[in-house]
């Protein structure tokens, strides 16, 4: 336990002096392995094959597709289309970003893909409209977690399958919490931007004029709008899997960008692909060393020990549930989301069931918490990723992030923990579980 505390302290210090997150995780892994005398020879192979996962391939494909959509003119037209509706509303684009992340969740099963696909389009547009860069990045980083709460979600599938629960019920359990978080974020966004004079707002125009604007934007954006239609239709029509959808998205941008919107030529296309690939590289490097560090922690059974320790602190159900929340956030910081859901399922699910918590209720607790761990500094992979996509520095996005977390996500986590109906309402209604 002391070792863990020391390593955590070292990690925080190194992160603060601006060492690349990837190397910090590497140092954490080496430090912990040296302290505990664990063999280090399988850390790399393990992390390597975790990178070699078919589902992870959607990440580079979505990031590069996002870069190509930017260069091709698809994203401009999509945003103009959206803006035709929400232009006169202060903070409209921010709310659209939040809702888009939630909707994108219906396509993608990971927060990283959401940042890649939406952040690379929306952050520059928000900045154009006068949103502070750090704020826009924080908004995308925090909203990306919504992609995990709206099914499908890779960590949730793994949690349910490992714990022997119904995947569909586990999926349904996080939908209401997800929607609530999205609504609160929209509200925070509205209140925050109300005071800001830098953010541009279109002048109010009459309804017929507005319809003309919308009609014009829709016409110009028709090929762009077709893209999400193809993606959703393809996935829910069973034509391709969510992973393959990323490749389809990329393949779609090329002809539309070259032939229809003409934003792409050989030069711009190459540049966009390289930019996207390099952006992938910086994220993959971080994830890779996070896998390495996860492995050391798991080998040493750190989550198990943390759990035993925290649960021994009290007999009170409410206190234990609060401690489990804390533990889940810690796990979300120390290990990657897939390992996190395996650990939550094998270590904490039995504890929760002993306490009389409904397993599907617990799935929602896990779902809302692990996402939170991924955006809570200092170990905040999704947040750093949003910062990178948005070209923002840590100090620029730290404060807005904490605002979203403390006023939005954290209260919902507590509500989900203590109001089981938030999680159980939909599974009961639609699947009739007890």
């Amino acid at each position, binding site marked *: 336990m002391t070792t863990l505390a020391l390593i955590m302290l070292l990690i925080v210090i190194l992160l603060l002096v601006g060492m690349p997150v990837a190397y910090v995780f590497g140092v954490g892994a080496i430090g912990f392995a040296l302290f505990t005398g664990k063999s280090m020879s*399988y850390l790399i192979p*393990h992390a390597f094959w975790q990178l070699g996962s078919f589902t992870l391939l959607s990440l580079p494909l979505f990031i590069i597709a996002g870069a190509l959509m930017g260069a091709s003119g698809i994203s401009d037209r999509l945003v103009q289309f959206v803006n035709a509706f929400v232009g006169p509303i202060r903070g409209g684009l921010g709310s659209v970003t939040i809702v888009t992340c939630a909707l994108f969740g219906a396509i993608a099963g990971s927060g990283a893909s959401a940042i890649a696909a939406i952040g690379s389009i929306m952050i520059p547009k928000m900045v154009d409209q006068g949103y502070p860069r750090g704020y826009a990045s924080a908004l995308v980083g925090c909203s990306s977690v919504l992609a995990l709460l709206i099914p499908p979600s890779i960590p949730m599938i793994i949690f349910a399958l490992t714990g022997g629960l119904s995947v569909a019920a586990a999926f349904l359990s996080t939908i209401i919490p997800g929607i609530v978080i999205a609504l609160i974020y929209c509200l925070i966004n509205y209140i925050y931007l109300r005071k800001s004079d830098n953010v541009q707002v279109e002048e109010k125009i009459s309804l017929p004029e507005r319809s003309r604007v919308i009609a014009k934007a829709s016409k110009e954006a028709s090929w762009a709008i077709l893209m999400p239609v193809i993606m959703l239709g393809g996935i829910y*029509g069973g034509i391709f899997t969510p992973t393959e959808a990323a490749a389809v998205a990329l393949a779609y941008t090329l002809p539309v960008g070259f032939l229809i919107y003409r934003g792409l030529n050989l030069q711009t296309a190459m540049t966009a692909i390289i930019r996207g690939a390099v952006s992938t590289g910086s994220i993959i490097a971080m994830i890779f060393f996070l896998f390495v560090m996860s492995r050391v922690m798991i080998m040493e*059974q750190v989550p198990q020990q943390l759990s035993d320790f925290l649960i021994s602190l009290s007999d009170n159900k409410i206190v234990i549930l609060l401690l489990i929340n804390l533990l889940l956030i810690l796990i979300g910081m120390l290990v990657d989301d897939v390992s996190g859901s395996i650990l939550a399922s094998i270590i904490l699910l039995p504890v929760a069931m002993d306490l009389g918590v409904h397993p599907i209720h617990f799935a929602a607790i896990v779902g809302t918490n692990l996402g939170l761990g991924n955006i809570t500094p200092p170990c905040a992979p999704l947040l750093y990723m949003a910062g990178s996509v948005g070209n923002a520095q840590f100090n620029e996005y730290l404060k807005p992030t904490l605002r979203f977390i403390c006023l939005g996500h954290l209260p919902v986590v507590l509500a989900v923990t203590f109001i089981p109906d938030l999680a159980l309402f939909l599974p009961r209604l639609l699947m009739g579980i007890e």
Partner: protein
Amino acid sequence: AEEVVFAHAMSKEHIFNPIADQFLAALEQKAPGAFDVKYHPGGDLGDWTSQFEQTIAGEIGMTMTFPATDFDPRLNIASLGLVASNWEEATRVYGPGGSLVSTYEEIYAGLNMKLLAILPVDFAGIAIRKGEGKVPVNFPEDAAGIKVRVPPTQIAIKRFEYLGFNPVPMPFSELYTALQLGSVDGRTFGPPSEIWQMRDVLETYVFSRDFFEQGAFVVNMDWWNSLDASEQKALQASADDASKWAWKEAESISEGLIADIKAFGIDVVELTPEQNAKMGQIIRDKEWTWIESTVGKPLVDRIRTATAH
């Protein structure tokens, strides 16, 4: 005490969990305090192929895993269809002292692993997703045009081609979503436990028993050799106890699962003797001949001898 990592990659409801409990209890009783076992269930140390490799490397001391053909193509025989078609045959072939156990011991020894026991999982069948309305029982004609997920191995692809399906190799992690959304019409190599796992998205389970899934309880050979005779004896005896228990219980666990699946509303279909014979002929004629090119005719002949009765 001898510190050792003992891992498997299977979920809570898999038979590996009670087997591990039995094994650990027996070990504590036979050699109290001799082993400090770090038990890692559920796959937190990697999927089963990775755990297989880690046991070769000695990173993991003991694992319950499945025969991984990446490391020795001869292990393809573990996926061969209809080596056993009922529990009695399975026990005779794979159970304690079974007719193929020594063959597997040899193969694993070549991979720097000591085989403690072959573990029973279950027979597997073909499941069709909700809303599909198809019930393939006459092969190959009923299977035409049905896209089924197969594990990404040659032998799995071949078998379901021979049986008339359109096999779609797909990683397990994509399977649930693919069934839910319909990128495949069904899945193969599905033991009842996995059908129960994915019950929400399934409609029909043709319990074809074309394949008997076996696990392998293996330990790293170097580590095994480093133990003294009494420790080796305690380990082997505990593994024997656990595997005997498993071979005794597996059938009733399977029956319980099938009952649950039926109660949940999934249509469980058994093949008639004629349908079964037709499937058996395709598998023995085509698949068994095909696999000779991968693993060699002598090995296939050994299986033919071991399964003849």
